[in-house]
């Protein structure tokens, strides 16, 4: 490189451009969130920043990496936890209840090489893996839920169901270099329409019945309380008046007269008395 070349701005520019292209196709920055497979003439050579369990950030394979320019090709694969979601999967349980299930699986590509090979070394490996996992997930979900009664989903058994789905899916997913981190059922609902409405109807009638029961129980309790009070009162009266039934008769009669013929009682009282009346005994003078 002589001075003339250096002085020539166009030559300098071209040279810098070539250098830049060379550098760009040699060096690549591997972030913590991605892993890469190096293909040399479409032949996988090695993987970069492959996932290892319990790795510490800063000591992973991330960082600057070099490859043979124009010969090696990098295929990027996400290293993070990814998800597959299933929406509104119709499932028929053993007791013939139709259910709509939303579920998701969280997975991580732990073997990028397998993942890349099994999906055809494209730049959208994660997408492809997700697409492949979806039907597998769906079928293992149905398999597992189809073996169980509906009530199993509404019990602590649910955890076990999800564990089984995970295990089933893991078996199928291993060929994609995928580790299933977790499978969870988000919704397990009755499908809208008749099943849902009938469930609501059941709730409604159950509540109406409950309401009637509560009312009846209330009345029952009230009647018992009243009857008990009456009985207790009768007992008190009897205890008191039994001391002298004859005097009670007289005493009560007097009370009753006062009440019945009192001025403020309803209606005006007119009495037709016979002189034989005991009250008028003295009226006639002593005979």
């Amino acid at each position, binding site marked *: 490189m002589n001075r003339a070349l250096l002085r020539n701005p166009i030559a300098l520019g071209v040279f810098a451009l070539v250098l830049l292209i060379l550098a760009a196709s040699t060096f690549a920055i591997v972030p913590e969130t991605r892993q890469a497979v190096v293909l040399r003439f479409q032949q996988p050579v090695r993987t970069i920043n492959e996932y290892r369990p319990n790795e510490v950030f800063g000591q992973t394979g991330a960082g600057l990496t070099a490859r043979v320019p124009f010969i090696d090709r990098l295929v990027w694969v996400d290293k993070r936890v990814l998800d597959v979601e299933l929406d509104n999967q119709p499932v028929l349980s053993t007791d013939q209840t139709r259910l709509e299930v939303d579920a998701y699986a969280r997975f991580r590509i732990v073997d990028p090489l397998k993942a890349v090979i099994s999906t055809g070394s494209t730049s959208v490996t994660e997408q492809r893996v997700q697409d492949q996992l979806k039907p597998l997930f769906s079928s293992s979900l149905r398999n597992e839920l189809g073996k169980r009664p509906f009530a199993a989903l509404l019990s602590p058994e649910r955890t076990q169901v999800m564990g089984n789905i995970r295990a089933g899916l893991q078996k199928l997913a291993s060929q994609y270099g995928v580790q299933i981190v977790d499978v969870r059922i988000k919704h397990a609902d009755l499908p809208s329409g008749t099943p849902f409405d009938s469930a609501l109807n059941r709730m409604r*009638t159950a509540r109406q019945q409950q309401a009637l029961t509560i009312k009846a129980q209330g009345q029952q*309790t009230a009647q018992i309380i009243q009857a008990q*009070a009456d009985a207790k009162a009768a007992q008190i009266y009897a205890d008191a008046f039994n001391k002298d039934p004859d005097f009670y008769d*007289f005493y009560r009669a007097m009370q009753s007269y006062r009440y019945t013929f009192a*001025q403020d009682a309803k209606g005006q009282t*007119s009495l037709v008395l016979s002189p034989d009346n005991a*009250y008028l005994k003295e009226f006639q003078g002593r005979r």
Partner: protein
Amino acid sequence: MRLPLFFARTHPYKGFMTILSGWFQRLSILAADNKGPWGSGSGSDNGGGDSGGPRNPWAQPPGGKPRGTTPGPSALDEFLKRARGGGGGSGGGGGRPRIPGAPSAGQLWVIAVGILLVAWIALTSFHSIGPQERGVVTVLGRYSETLEPGIRFTLPAPFVEVAKVDVAAINTDTFPDDSSAVTAGKDTDKLMLTSDQNIVDLDYSVRWQIANPQDFAFQIARPRETLRATAQSAMRAVVATATLDEAIGAGRTAMEVKVQQAMQEILDRYNAGIRIQGVAIKGAQAPAQVADAFKEVSAAQQQAQSDISRARGYAQQVLAKAQGEAAAFDVIYAQYKLAPEVTRRRMYYDTMEQVLSKSDKTIIESPGVVPYLPLPGMRRVPSAPSPVVAAPQTPGVAQ
């Protein structure tokens, strides 16, 4: 476009105007309009423009007149010369003044590059990390450290990247998501099955915080969605083990704790770097479709309660009356025992006096005579059943 037009009006001189007119003739957008923004051209705007050129470009229909003597390219050359400070144009004082002793082109390049460098370093090397933030530093993609609050210095971009993560803020996610109109009206987000196969309508929120910035940044592809999915899953799993009455009533607090634990467990399995601060069930009720039936239940409870309290009131009343009467009887009976005959007669006369003094009385001598109606006292109560009291022959005196 605005600026050149403005120029053309206020600083009319030949150089600019000719160029502008040349441009405008080429710009078919403006040329389509026959009138300019300031009315049809009067020529005065052009000031000392050359006579051969178009006075006002807007006044002329496009292509209606030949371009005249002002060829575009030559004017452009002139303009460029002026811009470089050559001052070769015909108009005086139009160009930039040339600074004596100005640096040459090479020096200018160095200065420009230097300024760019300084700006680059200043903008990408100093990081102001707020007290609530942490900076996750990656050197060429590899995680190196987490910056604590303060002004921090790193190597400039693109070698080093700093992602700021807010670790103090407590984020709240509500379910159903009221921020998005799409899911707001969706019932299925709220309705959940309970263990007794009933449906409960739940509103809840999750408060969470970033516990580990680097995990949060590197481990989960979609942290927010993951959190939401986790919350929904955990909540439904917990609701599925509770009865409707628990979910609506007393079991809420226990459910909140359970959901929080379940979520934390799941997120820890993902190494999400998220800490769940709490789960709050804001509203738990029966679905709107059956709300009436639930109201009926509470109405029935109220009614039962009122029935019972009415009965209790009655009982109190009856008992009190009984006790009172019994006590009164006891007291009088105690006196009666002391002098039975006298007391009895006294009570009889007292009562009779009281009764008869207030009543109309008719005394009929012979027991065989039946009085003709109407008797004087009876006219006041014509319709009432006859209050005639057969006089007791021997009232009370039964000895």
